[in-house]
């Protein structure tokens, strides 16, 4: 009877298209909003992921990566003394002002990395050599920096600009993950960063750590906390801590959650109502099938097949449209759009729930349907 179920579904073109539109819209909305949400979360973690260190040592009361609470300079040596630490290097992170050649100012996220190891440098070098950061006045600028500081005509390897009235010469163009604040990243050596930034009692933002071979990262994290009294997190823990803080302290979670819920409800309402209408309009036909010998189970399977078929098609179209949106509107990192497989699996499960729940109403109607209805004129 699968064939009959599918012909009933596709034959009633108006209702089929309405169902498809409802489920497509629902999928697209959930995937699009979910991808933007996860894109924003990825941006919020960029301060961590761009650095690529297994362990972050912080002030014990830190909430998230952008909330910098500087440490005493001695923190680096204290951490180095913890058994199981392979290396520990300082990292400076702070928002500074860059003056462009046309006299305008632009805020930048300045990152000072260990000059000897260059730990904390970005993953991808697009132009120039990151090792040249060790040269006097040298800086590396990310792709957003190229755009914000004057465009490729003015910002290139060899070009100069000013940070806090200090000359900065570009030695490399790097690729980074955008940050939540949308500031361009500028890299220089740790010591130079300390020398050009305003005077403060403490300037060490973080200590980056790697465990020795055979030492579990989480175990070392616990040990650093215990022996130094500082905060210590694995890269993943620090990322989730940052996300948790954002969800708790901004309306982002509620906002996106509401939209996703809306997508779910709208999808279910349209699918449920259309399915119910479809069932009610074909009640006599279903009654005839029951009289002829189709069991309620068989009719339920037909309804579920119809529901899941249109659901899977709607899912495909919805994901396709959301992806297209991401590829066009969100191309080049202009919009935080991160479509991940767990999101797609989650949306698929949600869609199956929508289909199942909307089918239940129809199945209940059919279960209660007396086949004697077919003898009433």
């Amino acid at each position: 009877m699968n064939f009959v179920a599918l012909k009933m579904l596709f034959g009633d073109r108006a209702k089929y298209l309405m169902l498809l539109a409802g489920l497509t819209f629902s999928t697209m909305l959930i995937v699009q909003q979910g991808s933007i949400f996860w894109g924003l979360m990825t941006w919020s973690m960029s301060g961590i992921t761009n650095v690529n260190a297994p362990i972050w040592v912080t002030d014990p009361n830190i909430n998230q990566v952008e909330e910098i609470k500087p440490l005493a300079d001695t923190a680096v040596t204290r951490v180095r003394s913890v058994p199981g630490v392979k290396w520990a290097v300082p990292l400076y992170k702070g928002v500074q002002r860059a003056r462009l050649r046309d006299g305008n100012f632009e805020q930048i996220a300045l990152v000072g990395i260990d000059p000897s190891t260059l730990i904390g440098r970005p993953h991808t070098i697009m132009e120039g050599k990151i090792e040249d950061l060790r040269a006097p006045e040298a800086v590396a600028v990310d792709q957003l920096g190229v755009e914000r500081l004057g465009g490729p005509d003015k910002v290139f390897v060899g070009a100069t600009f000013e940070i806090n009235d200090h000359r900065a010469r570009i030695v490399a163009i790097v690729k980074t993950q955008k940050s939540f604040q949308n500031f361009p990243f500028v890299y220089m050596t740790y010591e130079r960063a300390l020398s050009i930034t305003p005077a403060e009692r403490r300037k060490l933002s973080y200590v980056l750590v790697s465990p020795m071979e055979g030492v579990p990262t989480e175990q070392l994290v616990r040990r650093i906390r215990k022996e130094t009294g500082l905060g210590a997190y694995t890269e993943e823990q620090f990322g989730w801590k940052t996300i948790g803080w954002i969800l708790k302290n901004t309306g982002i979670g509620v906002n996106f959650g509401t939209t996703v819920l809306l997508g779910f409800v709208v999808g279910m309402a349209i699918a449920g109502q259309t399915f119910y209408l479809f069932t009610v309009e074909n009640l006599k036909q279903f009654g005839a099938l029951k009289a002829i010998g189709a069991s309620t189970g068989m009719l339920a399977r037909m309804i579920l097949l119809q529901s899941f078929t249109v659901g899977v098609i709607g899912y495909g179209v919805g994901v396709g449209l959301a992806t297209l949106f991401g590829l066009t509107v969100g191309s080049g990192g202009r919009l935080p759009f991160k479509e991940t497989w767990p999101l797609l699996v989650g949306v698929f499960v949600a869609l199956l729930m929508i289909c199942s729940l909307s089918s239940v109403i129809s199945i209940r109607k059919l279960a209660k349907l007396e086949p004697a209805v077919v003898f009433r004129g």
Partner: protein
Amino acid sequence: MDKRLDQNIQVLEGEFPQWLVRATGVTKAFGEGHTKIPVLKGVDLEVARGEVLLLVGPSGSGKTTLLSVIAGILDADDGDVTILGETIRDFSPAEKTRFRRDHLGFIFQQYHLLPTLTAAENAAVPLLIRGVSKQEAVARAEEVLRTVGMGGRLAALPTKLSGGEQQRVAIARALVGEPQLLLCDEPTASLDAETGHRIVGQIRENGKKPDRAVIIVTHDSRIFEFGDRIVHMDDGQVHQIQQGPEAFN
């Protein structure tokens, strides 16, 4: 036509003593308490193998309810219905559904064809319900449709068929599973006289076999000549049974 029917009835009287359907003391009421309305009041009825029986009577006399009880679609409050030696009351709802699927055929007044299936696919539905493959079911349905004169409209959708053609598809759907008992509810109600005659003639032709029987609920006196017996119902009871030529007067 009348002469041939007369001959058939004579043959029936002599050759079919065995009942295919037997209803004894069947009662059925709808509603509860003071709103309870008795619709069947102790109906006794037997249908012989190879017999075409017409159930007639005014609206509200209980014909359709009796048909539903015989089909196992409605449960009798009291009394028994035995079909092919099986007592319907003893069946679970699932067994009743299976029994209908395997042994009964239905023709409805409003046809109830699935609008998105072609004539051949509609006629194949009972076989599909039995689990026969689509290809085989449609092939067998096409054969039956040809026997009812619908060979030229196999791929037509119900909306493209006339009332008579739709009813012939419904007949094909009822016959494709070779049911032993064919139950028809006002099969000619929406048809003109000529089409009605042709349709009931086909129903009768298929019912006149030793292992089969047909029960037709009808108001249409134009088709009385096709019945072997005519059972008149009134007020939930069998009022009169006419047999042979007397029925047609």
